C-alpha cells in the first residue's frame, strides 16, 4: 500500500435512508468506476482496503462522514475528490480528501454536532424540555441494541443542547405546521448516545413528542475543542503535517 487517503463525505436528502452496508457497496463500486488504484487484502476473497469511521445510522443525514482508502500508487487528493464524487450517486457527496499522516483518525473523532428538526413541536415546549434535560444529572433511557435491550445514561455525553432561533418548516409538512430545530454536541462514548436517545430522554423528562419522525443531520465530527466546546476539523492534523 503506497498511501492512505482520508475522505470526508456527506449523506444527503433521500440518500440518508442508506444503511452502512449500502454505503460501503456504493463506495466500492464508485472506486472501481473512478479507476482509483485501491489496494486489496490478500486471500481467497480479496476485499478492497476501505475502512469507515463511526457511520451515522440509517435515516440520519450527515455532512461529516469519514472513510479511509488504501491505494497502491500515490494519488492526488484533489483529483481523487473530484473523481470519487463524480462516480458516487448524487446525495453521497465527497467534500474533502487528505493524505493520512498517521493511523489515528478514529481516535480523533471524539464528538459530533447534530441538528434535529422536530415537526409539529411548539418552540416554548421544546425550550422547556431542553432546560429540564440539561438540568438533570442523569437521564436513563433504553434502546434495543444488537445485544438486546440496554439501559444507559443519555445525559452525561451531551455537552451542549440548545433550541435554534427562528421557526422553520420541515420538508413535506403542511406549510402552516411549525417545527423546532435543536442543536447539540455529544461526546462519543460507549454505549454511544445517539440523537434518538436524546429525544427519548426529552420525552421522558418533559413529555416532548414530535408529530412525525424528526429529521436528523450530523453537522460535524472531530476532536472536541476545549474553548468552543464543538468538534473541530479532524483533517487539521493531516493538513498541517503533524509530526512526521
Amino acid at each position, binding site marked *: 500500500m503506497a498511501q492512505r487517503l482520508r475522505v470526508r463525505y456527506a449523506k444527503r436528502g433521500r440518500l440518508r435512508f*442508506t444503511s452502512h452496508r*449500502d454505503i460501503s457497496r456504493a463506495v466500492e463500486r464508485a472506486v472501481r468506476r473512478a479507476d482509483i488504484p485501491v489496494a486489496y487484502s490478500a486471500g481467497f476473497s480479496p476485499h*478492497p482496503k476501505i475502512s469507515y469511521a463511526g457511520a451515522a445510522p440509517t435515516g440520519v443525514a450527515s455532512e461529516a462522514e469519514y472513510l479511509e482508502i488504501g491505494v497502491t500508487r500515490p494519488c492526488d487528493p484533489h483529483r481523487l475528490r473530484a473523481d470519487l464524487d463524480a462516480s458516487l450517486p448524487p446525495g453521497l457527496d465527497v467534500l474533502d480528501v487528505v493524505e493520512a499522516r498517521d493511523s489515528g483518525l478514529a481516535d480523533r473523532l471524539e464528538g459530533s454536532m447534530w441538528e434535529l428538526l422536530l415537526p409539529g413541536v411548539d418552540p416554548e415546549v421544546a425550550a422547556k424540555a431542553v432546560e429540564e434535560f440539561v438540568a438533570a444529572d442523569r437521564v436513563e433511557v433504553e434502546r434495543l441494541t444488537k445485544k438486546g435491550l440496554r439501559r444507559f445514561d443519555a445525559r452525561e455525553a451531551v455537552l451542549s443542547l440548545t433550541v435554534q432561533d427562528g421557526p422553520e418548516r420541515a420538508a413535506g409538512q403542511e406549510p402552516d405546521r411549525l417545527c423546532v430545530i435543536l442543536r447539540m454536541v455529544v461526546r462519543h462514548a460507549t454505549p454511544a448516545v445517539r440523537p434518538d436517545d436524546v429525544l427519548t430522554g426529552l420525552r421522558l423528562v418533559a413529555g416532548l413528542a414530535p408529530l412525525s419522525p424528526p429529521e436528523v443531520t450530523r453537522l460535524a465530527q472531530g476532536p472536541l475543542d476545549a474553548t468552543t466546546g464543538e468538534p473541530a476539523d479532524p483533517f487539521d492534523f493531516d493538513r498541517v503535517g503533524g509530526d512526521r
Partner: protein
Amino acid sequence: MSVESLFPRLEPLLPKVQKPIQYVGGELNSTVKDWDEASVRWALMYPDAYEIGLPNQGVQILYEILNELPDTMAERTYAVWPDLEALMRSEGVPQFTVDAHRPVRAFDVLGVSFSTELGYTNLLTALDLAGIPLDAVDRTDEDPIVLAGGHAAFNPEPIADFLDAAVLGDGEQIAIAISEVIREWKEEGSPGGRDEVLMRLASTGGVYVPKFYDVEYHPDGRIMRVVPNRPGVPSRIFKHTVMDLDEWPYPKKPLVPLAETVHERFSVEIFRGCTRGCRFCQAGMITRPVRERSITTIGDMVENGIRESGFNEVGLLSLSSADHSEIGDVAKGLADRYEGTNTSLSLPSTRVDAFNIDLANEFSRNGRRSGLTFAPEGGSERMRKVINKMVTEEDLIRTVTTAYSQGWRQVKLYFMCGLPTEEDVDVLGIADLAKKVIQAGRDATGSKDVRCTVSIGGFVPKPHTPFQWAAQCDHETVDRRLRELRDALRGDKEYGRAIGYRYHDGKPSIVEGLLSRGDRRVGRVLRAVWEDGGRFDGWSEHFSYERWMRAAEKALAGEPVDVEWYTTREREEHEVLPWDHLDAGLDREWLWQDWQDANSDVEVEDCRWTPCYDCGVCPTMGTEIQIGPTGKKLLPLTVV
C-alpha cells in the same frame, strides 16, 4: 398537465418501514425525464419486492429503450411491502414510481413484467393503491393501459379481467411500436377514447386485448371456444421475436441500486431461446429459436457494463449458457481479460458433462472451487427419458468424478417430483443416485470430505409445453414421496451425513398450477385471495395455501370446475385450452406428438445441431436459428 412528486408525502412514512432505501430511487444510471416533454409515458413494474425486481433484465432493457425515444419516458415501480402498503393506505399516498415518485395512475401505460404467476396478487395491490379500477372494463380515459409481458403472459387468462392488453415474447420492438401507436393516437386528440387505442393495438395481431374476446364454455366446464367479439380483431395473437441480438446490446447503462438486491452483478444475455426440448420447460418452448450474441458483442457488453456500473461480478445469462457455440472462447477470453482485476465471472449452467466443468474451472481460476450444480431433473433413467433430459446415470457419475477430482468439493443436484408417469421408485431412485455420487467423489479424491446436496421441488405443468395436457400430481403424493426420499437419504449410515436435502413442498405448486393453466374463471379466485389479504405469493412467509383453497371454493361455487379440475385433471387432445388462441409458434400437433412420445419414453434431438422444423416455430414466425461460430476471439484490452 404536470404531475407533482409524491416524495414529500412519502418521506415521513419511510422512517417507519423496513429498508426504506428501496423506495427512494436515485440508482446510478436511472433516468428522470421532464414530464411535459414526453408525449407517451410508461410506468414499468416488476410485481415483486424491489430486491427481486430491480435486477430483472427485461424491465431494465425496456426502461432504457423507451427512455432513448425522444418523445417517450419510462419510470419504474415495484411491489411495496405490507408495512408501507398499510401506511400508504392510511395516509392516502398512491402507488408511485421510484424514479421521480410520480403517481402510477398518471402514466399512459402501466407495463407489468411477469416472469412467474406468483406476482399476480401484487398486481392487484398496485392497481388498487394506484387508484386504478381492478376490472379493465371499469377503467376510464384517466387510467393507464395496463399491459402485461414476460413469460407468464403466454397465458394471461387468469388475469385477463385486470389487464387491458398483453404481449407475448421479446419486448424490445413491440414496446417501441406500442409507444408509436399511442403517440399518434394522442396527437390526433385521442379519438374514441381508450377503446379506440386498444383497437388500434389489437388489430395488429401483436397485442392481445382480452376484453375483445369472449370465452364460451361447455356445460361440463370445458372451453368451447374463444372468439373475437368485434370486427377487426384477429382470432390469433402472435409472439414477438427479436432477431440479431447484436443489434440490441442492452442494457448499456445497467441500473446500480443502493439497496441490496438478489443479483449484485452485471448480467449479459449471451443468447435467447433453448432447443434442448426438455418437455417440462416452458421457457425453452416459448423462446425458440436459439439466437446467439456474438463473442465480440458479449465482450463489448461486459467491458461497457463493468465500466458503467462498477460491479465486480459479471454473469453470463441465458437458458443454458454452456450451449453457446463459442462459450469456450468466451470463457477463456473473459477470464484472461479480467485476470488480476478482482472481477469475478459466473456462468449459471447445470449441464451434466465434462465440458461444463472445464468452463467452471476457467471461471474459478483465482477463486475457491466451492460448488457445482447439475440438473438431471428426473430421478430415474426412465423418468429422464419421459422429460427428454438426455442424461444417463453413467454421464452423471463420470461428470461428478471429474468435478471432484479437479478440486470441487460440493455438488448440487436439481430434481423435480410429481412428473408425468412418475412412481415412488423414480423419486426414491434419487437416493441411490446421490449415494453413488458421494461414493464416486470418495473414490476420486480418496477423502471423505466430499458433499452433495439434493434439491427438489414439485413439477407444475405449463402452457405451450408437451406437458400442457398432463395431470399435475396431487400435493399429498408429492409430499409423501419427498418425505420418503428424505428418510432414505437421512437414514443411511454410510452416506447420510454427506448428503444435504432441500425441498419445496407440494402445496404451493398446486396454486402455481391453478394459475399456470387457469382460464378467466380463475381470476375470481385471484381476486378473492387478494381481498382476503393475499400478497407476495412467492414468499413462504406470506403464502397461504388455505387462503387460496378457501377463496377457490367461494369463487368457483356453482361452477362445474374446481381446483382439482384445473390441476390434477389430464386434458384430452382436442380440448380447447385457455391459451390456444395465443400463438407461440409451436405446432399443436407436434406438441401433442411429443406428449405421446413422452409417455412411451421416446426422446427428441436438439434442433440446433440437426436441421429440423418440426416444432413449427421458425416457419410460423419467420425466424431462424442464429448461432456461431464466428471464429473470432476476445483480444486483451489495452491498459490505459
